[in-house]
């Protein structure tokens, strides 16, 4: 067991700040890195020591293995935390770090390689009996054979070009009698688009939900799950609303899906924090999608409902300590929701926006958390991820969590850049979201209803009032003028006329 005393955070933005915060509580020193244009960003300032990486491409700076290792060695960091993205799932980097005698806070090189590859991961999943989407991915392209396979899989099925992408050479087939025509059409399109008419046949999930399970493993063979997160609300294939517990899981499905995830972690002899992603269909059947071998963006949702600090657990596991909790200690308490605030224009294809942040703000209610890598005065540029912040709320139940999120979203205006805040608010107010009818096509299905609303005269009058009057710090002397503070009886008697 090696005690970690100083950590180099090989990342930036909100995740670097988040790792620093846990280190501050643990009394672990931190080293952060930044590019010259980021010298005023929180991650460049909140660490005990910070190193400017100099100008250059990402490859020359944040992704520069040699440089990061040199910094870690010079500043005597005994561990590197890779955050998410960047080098967090880079097997070569993790291996290099370890060879240099530095602790890499993450899973083994082998786990990363195994789960980072679509083919090898699925072979392994079959081996350990994890559920995969039923399908035929083989070479036999005989229409009659494929039709038999389709029947075995069960309609509806998806016929998809093996070489495909972007929806070309893809057909949803809803019944046996449509199969031959759809197959022919898909093959024609595939040949035209990719010069290869090979197709695969897979079960088509009608109303899919994205359910993922947080897993945690130590070096002593303990493999736990920390319950699920539902992340079905996505735009442009990126999650924007995440929650736990999932409104779709019955206790039985929850037990099954979380145990499957823990079994996968155990089956690949995993170490540290990981996330197993599944697709859940309308019948409560779920299928393995992929495993992310790192901390996930939306991990605060799990922290809120379990009361655990996942970075603290990562550090303890990396130090060789056994996990300080048992499976039966992991209990969901209340409901947590996270929304991702992006610098983007939801009413114009979600195109990223830029600007100088005039005011970040802060959520005003207890049981809330704002994870951000920005502060007032920072520039939002196109050089980095347009995610401005994650706003997370915890409350007694899903209904109260939604209401709390609606109450605190206006507290974080991020004035100065166009954001998706109003768009998120429209999602939170959508009846289907409130009912928990959250599928991965939610944003497309309700596109029109999620667009900007008409502004009523009442709303205009309010906006005018605020524009003309806000910013005055005082409103004349206290209690001056007539009727400034009517006594309660006057106030009550005037109410009688209402």
């Amino acid at each position: 067991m090696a005690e970690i005393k100083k950590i180099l955070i090989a990342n930036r933005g909100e995740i670097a700040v988040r790792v620093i915060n846990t280190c501050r509580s643990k009394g672990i020193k931190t080293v952060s890195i930044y590019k010259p244009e980021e010298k005023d960003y929180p991650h460049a300032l909140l660490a005990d020591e910070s190193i400017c990486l100099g100008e250059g491409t990402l490859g020359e700076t944040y992704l520069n293995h040699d440089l990061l290792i040199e910094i870690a060695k010079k500043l005597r960091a005994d561990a590197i935390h890779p955050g998410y993205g960047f080098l967090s799932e880079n097997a070569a980097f993790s291996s290099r770090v370890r060879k240099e005698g530095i602790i890499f806070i993450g899973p083994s090189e082998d786990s990363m390689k195994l789960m980072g590859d679509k083919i090898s991961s699925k072979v392994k999943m079959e081996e350990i009996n994890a559920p995969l989407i039923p399908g035929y991915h083989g070479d036999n392209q005989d229409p009659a054979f494929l039709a038999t396979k389709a029947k075995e899989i069960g309609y509806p099925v998806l016929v998809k070009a093996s070489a495909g992408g972007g929806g070309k050479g893809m057909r949803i087939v809803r019944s046996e009698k449509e199969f031959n025509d759809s197959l022919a059409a898909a093959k024609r399109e595939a040949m035209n688009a990719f010069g290869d008419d090979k197709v695969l046949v897979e079960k088509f999930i009608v109303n899919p939900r994205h359910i993922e399970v947080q897993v945690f493993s130590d070096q002593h063979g303990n493999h736990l799950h920390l319950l699920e997160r539902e992340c079905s609300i996505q735009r442009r294939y990126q999650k924007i609303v995440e929650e736990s517990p999932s409104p779709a899981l019955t206790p039985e499905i929850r037990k099954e899906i979380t145990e499957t995830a823990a079994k996968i972690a155990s089956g690949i002899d995993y170490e540290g924090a990981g996330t197993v992603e599944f697709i859940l269909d309308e019948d409560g059947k779920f299928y393995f999608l992929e495993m992310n071998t790192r901390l996930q963006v939306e991990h605060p949702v799990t922290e809120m409902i379990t009361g655990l600090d996942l970075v603290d657990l990562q550090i303890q596991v990396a130090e060789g300590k056994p996990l300080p909790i048992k499976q039966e200690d992991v209990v969901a308490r209340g409901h947590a929701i996270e929304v991702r605030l992006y610098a983007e224009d939801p009413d114009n294809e979600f195109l990223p926006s830029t600007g100088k942040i005039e005011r970040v703000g802060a959520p005003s209610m207890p049981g809330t958390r704002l994870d951000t890598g920005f502060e007032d005065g920072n520039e939002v540029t196109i050089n980095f991820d347009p995610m401005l912040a994650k706003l997370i709320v915890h409350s007694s139940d899903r209904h109260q969590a939604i209401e709390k999120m609606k109450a605190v979203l206006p507290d974080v205006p991020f004035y100065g850049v166009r954001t998706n805040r109003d768009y998120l608010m429209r999602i939170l107010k959508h009846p289907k979201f409130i009912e928990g009818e959250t599928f991965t096509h939610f944003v497309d299905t309700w596109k029109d209803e999620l667009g900007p609303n008409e502004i009523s005269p009442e709303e205009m009058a309010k906006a005018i009032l605020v524009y003309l009057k806000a910013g005055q710090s005082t409103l004349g002397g206290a209690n001056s003028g007539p009727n400034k503070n009517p006594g309660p009886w006057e106030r009550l008697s005037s109410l009688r006329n209402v």
Partner: protein
Amino acid sequence: MKKKLMIENQEIEFFILKDQDGEVMIEVDGQKFDFKVLKSNPEHFIFSYGGRNHFSNISPSRRSGVIVDGKTYKIGPIERGGAASKGSDGEAMSSPMPGKILKLLVEVGAKVSKGDGLLIMEAMKMEHTIKASNDGVLEKFHYQEGELVDGGVELVELKGMEEA
């Protein structure tokens, strides 16, 4: 007096029918709305409408909109496009926030150069010098010394000089 503001790219006409002791009545689209301002500070602005308290806030620069009842509105003065109302460097000669006109610094009719101080106003307990956004002739001060002005209101009329 009819006034105009841009709200989300729409030109909106309105009337202030009352503005006294924190009580404000605004008419938009033939409908009248009665407000009572309860609190105003840099972080938030709280007013009462229909017997209920409403929460809002405004961007520090006043240029990035307002949030009222959880909804964001882009709002600001009508863009005239003319040199008089907006300088080439984008500095409008309007009140940055509500306050009081302290001192007029030049005479009406005076030639001024870009950057010259035209008047001083006091707001949020600070003094702000409103400067000429371009070279020109000062045609008119819309407010006199001691007058209270709202935020975002044009303060002077400056006639630009062609090819000065």
